[in-house]
């Protein structure tokens, strides 16, 4: 017999493990957009982990944190892609 919170905690652990594998591409990635793609994927995983933990421990206020984090994640990608074209790079 498995409770719902156990399922959600296991899924959160699996998402954290996949994010740690994605760090390989941030360290190794030959070009700057490779690293930005990897950071974007890991940021999406962080949003999902926050939402899963909010449902698992019953803390509904953490959903607002997840929403703001998703917004900042999108803003990071758009800002870097605009700056690299118009000003020749930020990094």
């Amino acid at each position, binding site marked *: 017999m498995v409770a719902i919170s156990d399922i959600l905690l296991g899924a959160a652990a699996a998402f954290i493990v996949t994010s740690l594998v994605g760090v390989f591409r941030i360290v190794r990635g030959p070009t700057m957009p490779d690293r930005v793609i990897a950071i974007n994927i890991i940021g999406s995983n962080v949003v999902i982990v926050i939402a899963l933990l909010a449902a698992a421990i019953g803390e*509904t206020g953490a959903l607002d944190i997840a929403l703001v984090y998703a917004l900042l994640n999108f803003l990071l990608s758009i800002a870097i892609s605009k700056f690299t074209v118009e000003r020749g790079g930020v990094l």
Partner: protein
Amino acid sequence: MTLREIAVLVLAVGGVFFAVVAVVGLVRLPDLYTRAHGTSKSETLGAVLALAAVAIAFESSLSTLKTVLLLLFMFLTNPTAAHAIVRAAAEQGIEPWTEDEEAEES
């Protein structure tokens, strides 16, 4: 198990599966464009499935509504961000991967 638990289990396992597919594509594929192609789609689908599991798992209707709005937001912005990054890379002049580069890279 109730029907709700089965739905949460199936959606969470599907989300984890597509996140693993995204990370395998991110690590194994040879080029920026193929990596962005493989990861943005499968990561979006994994996020949608996992957040649907969260939406079903919540008891109160306000939290379910918030989670569904977060799901729709990620469903719209995740491919948009990948598209913007890849278009910036193309305008910067990064060349796509071809067959004869395979030998010198490894």
